[in-house]
């Protein structure tokens, strides 16, 4: 049966069809929907872990226990999970283990565009790289077989374009048999990585990767498509689609497995085409390996040969590809002769940007308004609240990776920075990797003020459950982690939980704490305004004729409040206007208005009665 599935849905489908019955991971764009889809299949256990490393350990544990298992994350998640990734590459498994890394070329929603194919080479495990949803499903199934055949975890490397493109997929309506529970292995030589055992395992995994390279020669998802012999293209992943689109007459060596490579297949292909190029996104990962085999690639006439350390030739190393980019760079290299107009029709108008911003009613806004007013350095973190960097709030000074806020603020404090630092972190990010950093602040008693913005959900990735929400991924009721108790248990004595919309209390508390010594934690608590229960409570506020256009309410950066076309007669300034279809009634604007010119919800209701 053919169904339209996104790449992510297809991975979930493939895992289920392959008899995978355990999955763990951490949400992260563009990977999130894999786990959300998998969790809905029958006969499976799926969970959100607090972070990727914990999730991978869980999937490894299940694979040791004899169940096919899955672990999903975005590309930077694999940095967090790297410790587990490397030991499981050494130990191997009892049942198939597939680790999905969803890379984000062009950084649609990420802090970098690292190419995680490199991780497979680093750890000596095979890497599959699908080009569409059918391949995402097929490669996932193939990955489980490969994993068990060679006693290795397999890296399934996805990219945003494959994750979030829907294409037709032929699916099989049945799940493979999930094996019965086996006796847990007692095999310390293989599974206890003390140095003596690890030294024995290292040659095993080097031999394994050589065997897999040999296997790659006949792996069905590596294939040669001979068409014209003038141009031969070695490609993998989504770049295959651009190769077919732009070069319909070229011969193509399509690599489903991008590590390790089939050397004989490549050298044979090279012999049969006149000009050979590699077309791939991001790093010259295939290109460097092909050159290392001694295979000669096409060298554009009159162009200096690419040399160490910048070894990528012809196509850009930055960003995702598309047919226009491929045509343009192929044209510059003398490979694409058709006439093309690279100058797209110019629009002479200067268009206003539409940057993402904190939503109307966002409970993070009040803290950022106060921080912006206090003008103190703020070390930020990864989540919706990173948008606190945008003007007019402009209240974040650093943001690097998950959990970095508290550690970086601590670093400034121990370096003797004379300004008091505030670390800002969301609930899910705090559970992910903020806790050890907060323990460090408490243990070493640094002057860091931490604000944990607890909006009761993992927001940025689209409302996933987390240890604070009281629900699991599969919608089971569970504990709701008490952040205040946890913070106290970490050794922080000065802790205050406030309602996130209490602007004055937040300001007063921060001003007091800034004068005092030692660590402090404020928990600002209020559910995300986009949660269904919150949406039911929206009451749009109104601006009264007391407004004189003083602009204070514009400083909160709320999309629902803007300058109207009516001018104040005395000051000739535009008066504020509230867009009733956007306003949720959070009352931050009403609280900051110095003239009480914005009605609170109670006043709006009283008026309408």
């Amino acid at each position: 049966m053919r169904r339209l599935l996104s790449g992510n849905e297809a991975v979930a489908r493939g895992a289920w069809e392959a008899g995978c019955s355990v999955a763990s991971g951490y949400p992260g764009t563009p990977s999130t929907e894999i786990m959300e889809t998998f969790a809905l299949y029958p006969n499976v256990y799926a969970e959100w872990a607090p972070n990727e490393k914990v999730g991978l350990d869980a999937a490894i544990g299940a694979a040791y226990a004899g169940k096919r298992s899955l672990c999903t994350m975005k590309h930077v998640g694999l940095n967090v999970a790297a410790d587990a990734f490397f030991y499981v590459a050494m130990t191997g498994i009892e049942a198939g283990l597939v680790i999905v890394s969803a890379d984000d070329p062009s950084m649609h929603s990420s802090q970098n565009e690292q190419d995680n194919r490199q991780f497979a080479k680093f750890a000596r495990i095979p890497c599959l790289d699908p080009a569409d949803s059918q391949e995402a499903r097929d490669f996932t199934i193939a990955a489980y077989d490969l994993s068990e055949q060679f006693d290795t975890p397999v890296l399934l490397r996805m990219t945003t374009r494959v994750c979030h493109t829907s294409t037709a997929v032929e699916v099989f309506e049945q799940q493979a048999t999930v094996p019965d529970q086996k006796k847990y292995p007692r095999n310390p030589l293989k599974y206890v990585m003390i140095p003596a055992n690890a030294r024995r395992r290292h040659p095993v995994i080097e031999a394994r990767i050589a065997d897999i390279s040999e296997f790659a020669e006949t792996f069905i998802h590596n294939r040669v498509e001979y068409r014209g012999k003038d141009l031969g293209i070695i490609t993998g992943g989504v770049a295959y689609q651009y190769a077919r689109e732009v070069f319909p007459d070229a011969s193509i060596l399509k690599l489903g497995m991008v590590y390790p490579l089939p050397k004989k297949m490549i050298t044979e292909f090279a012999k049969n085409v006149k000009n050979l190029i590699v077309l791939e996104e991001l790093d010259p990962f295939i290109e460097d390996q092909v050159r290392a085999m001694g295979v000669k690639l096409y060298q554009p006439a009159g162009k200096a040969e690419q040399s160490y350390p910048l070894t990528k030739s012809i196509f850009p190393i930055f960003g995702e590809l598309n047919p226009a980019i491929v045509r343009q760079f192929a044209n510059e290299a003398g490979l694409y002769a058709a006439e093309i107009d690279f100058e797209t029709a110019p629009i002479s108008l200067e268009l206003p940007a539409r940057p993402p911003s904190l939503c109307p009613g966002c409970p993070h806004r009040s803290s950022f308004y106060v921080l912006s007013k206090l003008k103190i350095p703020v070390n930020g973190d990864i989540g919706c609240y990173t948008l606190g960097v945008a003007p007019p709030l402009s209240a974040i000074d650093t943001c690097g990776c998950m959990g970095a806020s508290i550690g970086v603020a601590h670093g400034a404090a121990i370096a003797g920075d004379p300004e008091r630092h505030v670390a800002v972190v969301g609930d899910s990010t705090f559970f992910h990797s903020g806790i050890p950093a907060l323990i460090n602040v408490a243990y070493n008693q640094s002057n860091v003020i931490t604000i944990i913005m607890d909006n009761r959900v993992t927001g940025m990735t689209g409302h996933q459950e987390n240890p604070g929400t009281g629900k699991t991924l599969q919608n089971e009721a569970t504990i709701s982690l008490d952040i205040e108790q946890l913070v106290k248990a970490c050794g922080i004595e000065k802790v205050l939980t406030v309602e996130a919309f209490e602007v004055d209390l937040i300001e007063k508390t921060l001003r007091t704490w800034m004068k005092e010594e030692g660590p402090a934690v404020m928990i600002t608590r209020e559910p995300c305004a986009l949660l269904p229960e919150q949406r039911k409570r929206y009451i749009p506020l109104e601006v009264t004729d007391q407004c004189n256009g003083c602009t204070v309410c514009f400083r909160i950066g709320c999309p629902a409040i803007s300058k109207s076309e009516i001018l104040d007669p005395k000051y000739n300034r535009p008066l504020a206007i509230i867009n009733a279809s956007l306003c949720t009634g959070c009352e931050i604007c009403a609280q900051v208005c110095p003239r009480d010119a914005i009605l609170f919800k109670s006043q709006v209701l009283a008026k309408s009665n």
Partner: protein
Amino acid sequence: MFSFPKLGIKRDVLNFFLVGVGGQGTILASNVLAELGLKLGYDVKKAEIHGMSQRGGSVISHVRWGEQVFSPIIAKGEADFLIAFEKLEGLRFLDQIRPDGVFLVNDYQIVPVTVSSGNAIYPSDQDIRESTHEITSNNYWVDCRSIAEELGNVKVANVVLLGALCGLMEAELETWFPIIASKVPQKSVEINRLAFQRGVDAI
């Protein structure tokens, strides 16, 4: 081969480029188009970027139909239909359209925060019309928002626009509508049918 003589379109692969603002139902509309293509027996690709869309940013979706479709992304200057759920976003992605491709726009503006904060100016209708006319004479403006308001639910504006597209492509309502009906809550199927019909009639 796709052929729309009145629109001057004759193509092996048909490219729909959809743009809008988070919350306008752009994704639902592109899902409908993708499933419709599959139902009509074509190879289909639908590409979109998730992530920031809920936070007031632009939403973009590429839908391609053909015997065999490779690239999930429509190259600049190759969209046969640019379907804009908001005027500024339509203008922003005008360079996606082929010369004399179809520009179908919801005559509705959502002011971005850069404009509401007074740091930028929203382009006038006249500017938008002049810019689009430089690219194509196939311009269709439909006041989907007002039609949806008349029907009593602003949320169906996206379905009005889909109806207009159906009208432009001279397709059968009974082929298109069941897919929409399968994607909206049961209780709102009827209002969506009215919205779709109003869109068809608007062309």
